[in-house]
């Protein structure tokens, strides 16, 4: 954790954070995981499209993004209507791995203006057990790193159903730092991501007035 990104890890829990993990009750959760994988195969169209790395786009059509009460078990998560990026990330990881794609959890820090974050903060305040992901300058977000060959990786954001663009470094929604849980170093665009470390990839936003 020697990265310059440490400077903007505003909350101690972000420093310690690794990928969100869903808990397991027992057989009910095994069935829930299997249901998720079967749903993903039905929406994959692997033969029709001939694509190995197609992401689970159906997730963000089926589930609404919002606060999740943690901890949450698999059998509870699949029944939920609203899930946060940690659950989205856990779902996507399970789906990529089930179809034989090497995937790992990853986290990003993103910049957003107060005009957006004040609303999210209010929404999350209604659920005290939810993860505190909104900082003064950046927000914490969970994504999925997909190994596409050699040391090359791409990053899928299952919450929005998009592949992140490593060239976007500043502005609304830009990712200024990335943390990969891939066991080895990988390259993402022009960036090299070491295992378990926050890597700064964009300019830090200034501190808001009075912060």
């Amino acid at each position, binding site marked *: 954790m020697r990265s310059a990104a440490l400077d903007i890890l505003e909350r101690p829990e972000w420093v310690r954070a690794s990928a969100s993990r869903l808990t397991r009750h027992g057989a009910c959760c095994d*069935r829930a995981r299997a249901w998720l994988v079967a749903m993903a195969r039905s929406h994959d169209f692997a033969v029709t499209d001939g694509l190995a790395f197609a992401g689970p786009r159906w997730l963000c059509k089926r589930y609404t993004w919002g606060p999740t009460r943690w901890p949450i078990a698999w059998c509870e998560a699949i029944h939920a209507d609203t899930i946060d990026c940690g659950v989205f990330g856990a779902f996507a990881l399970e789906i990529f791995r089930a179809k034989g794609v090497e995937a790992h959890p990853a986290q990003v820090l993103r910049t957003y203006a107060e005009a957006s974050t004040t609303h999210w903060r209010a929404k999350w305040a209604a659920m005290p057990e939810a993860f505190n992901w909104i900082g003064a300058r950046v927000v914490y977000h969970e994504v999925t790193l997909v190994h596409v060959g050699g040391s090359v990786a791409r990053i899928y954001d299952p919450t929005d159903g998009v592949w992140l663009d490593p060239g976007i470094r500043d502005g609304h929604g830009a990712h200024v730092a990335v943390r990969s849980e891939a066991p080895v170093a990988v390259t993402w665009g022009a960036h090299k991501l070491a295992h378990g470390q926050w890597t700064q990839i964009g300019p830090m936003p200034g501190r808001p007035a009075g912060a």
Partner: protein
Amino acid sequence: MANQTIFVSGLHSGPSPSAGLGVARSLRAAFGTCHLIGIDYWAGSSGFHHEVFDDVWLKPSWDLLEQDLYARELAAELARGACWVPNLDLEIAWLARRMPAHRGLLAPSDHALAQTGKPFPAVARRLPFELPPALEMTIPDDEIHAFCRDHSWRVWIKGPYHEAIAVASWPELERARAQLRERWQTDRLSIQAHVRGYEESVAFAAVGGAIADAVYMRKRIVTPEGKTWAGRIGEVPAELLTPIEAAVREIQWTGGAEIELLRDVDGRLWLNEWNPRFPAWVHGATLAGRNLPAALVCRALGLPSPAARPLTGRVEFTRVVLEVPVRAELPLPLLPEPEHGIAGAVGKYGAALSAIVPLLAPEDRVRVAPPQVPAELAADLRDAAAVGATPHRLMFRRTAEAAFAGIPQPARPPRRAAGPAQLRFAYSLKTCPDAEYLALARGAGMLAECISLLEVRRALEAGWSAGDIVLNGPGKWWPSSEPATDGLRAVFCDSVEELERLQTSGRGDRMWGLRLRVPGLRSRFGVAVDDPGAFDRVCTAVAALPPERQLGVHVHMAGTLVGIGHWRDVVESAVVWAAMLEASTGRAVRVLDLGGGYHPDDLGRIPFAEIAAFASSRLASLNEVYVEPGRALTQATMGVVTSVLDVRRRGGQIDEVVVDACIAELPLAQVYPHRIFLFTGGRAVPVARGPVRLLGRICMEDDVLSPGLELPSNIAVGDRLVLSDAGAYERTMSYAFGRAGYP
């Protein structure tokens, strides 16, 4: 450059904008005092009114334009030192044919254009892009249908220069083909497989085969018409730019161009189209610091080019909608009087551009190849000559025998414990319950697949035992007056409620199962599992089955409607669900039933043994995989012999032919292509697609048996045709409308 005159055409800035306005704004940005003249061929072209133009030329639409005069006007302006930057594809093609090369005419030559035309651009061999599968649409309809099935009915019908329509079924394809043929006045259309990918582009400016500048663009926001609304400009990667430069050099390209690409998520780049002009978003690149139109003009005039500049920080652009005042000297065209229909009157930009097409390709009418005729069908058609009264549905016996001969006999002894599940073929009585077909099916060792108790009775009467009958469908216990034969081989329920009733029925069938409604499919049949609660309910019902009852899973989606790849996705998905059902209930799945709906030509192409092996790898206790060939066995084995009742002409040419068959005999006439034959000199000759509509005998507007056939000018009342591919549901869904007796 102070007084340089530059003509720019293609000015309409609507939902599908031309590039002229963006080109002009870029030129103005580079050469503040040049003299910019905008050209278009419709008074409503909105770009006329933009302040960027010093002057405008409104020319007549292309169907009224005096071409010789226009060519002389253009040549005179070029001789005076003007530059001409055309931005309409068809106009560019006309210029290439009509105008000699000139340093001020910044457009590709006819030779260069020919290297980039659809659907197989020769220049593609120089480029590091894959080409989506495509076909010229001059092949017979049954081959076009096969292409669509191969690509899972995700295809585009494309015009000869631009315009593409996505189609997902045969009726949609027919509509799109008719629409494009009408618009472009040619049969030179093509069909291209859809590629699932991001839309990206390389745009460049070149003179004499040398690229002056190039940029890469990734679309960020796309309009409902698929047009760019916002995008991100970047450098062209070296691994793409080098081969593009080589290709441009080889074909000696001059002018702007846009290479439209599709990038799939696996990283492959596909060449969609090579457009012979700048893209409409070209000013977005100028805002990012790369002015392609200026680079083009500078290179053409031998002026020092603006140094290749790095992109600015503002590499993203978007469009906005702006109102601008209309030039006083060019008032807007009046709207035509609203017509009777509910569609409002709209502008007709580009409506006459297609008038250029016949000028570009004035050769003879495109000839479409007639369908191929297999040997068995040729022999069967000879029997059709002996038919008396018409219309008459005729069994093609040799074709039927050949189809059933292709069914592998059941393996003896049955499956070994360690091997893959055994394939068993089941004949669907609904695809033809006639005695000849039932005998063929029994001879081929097939099981019987029924969807009602009446069909069960028919199967028993034909000699099948109850233990060889598979009962399917949402209303399988109908009619209640019929005894519900017990001891069937398999019963697949269409709902959880039906399975629960079965548990209390006291029946002793060998196997009970469920038809799955695989998520992502639009189907009214089967048990939904796309909700965890619904799946839990399925599991509860399955877990409660008597232990002695075997469990099966049925999946069905017509391959002829969704295509082969999609069908396989559905089947593999069903296997995954079956495995999950096993894991969740502790009940082993013993049978997998693959429903019918295959096209006759696909039955031999689908690797059922491979699919059985895949299923066995996921379902350890799987004993049997039932394959229901359905219409694949019977569709091609019948024809309707029909007689000509009326021959109608327009302008001396045959326009429509009425026959005594109709959609009552061929209720699916418009759902898939039928091979049609004309008796000439005692022989049945295959008929190609052509201009003559074939109409049925009944007074229904949709009684159109073919939208177009190539029929001889001497066809006469009483001549006979055979409409083949009239078995299966054409046989069993036919009805009595228009005949003397009704049921």
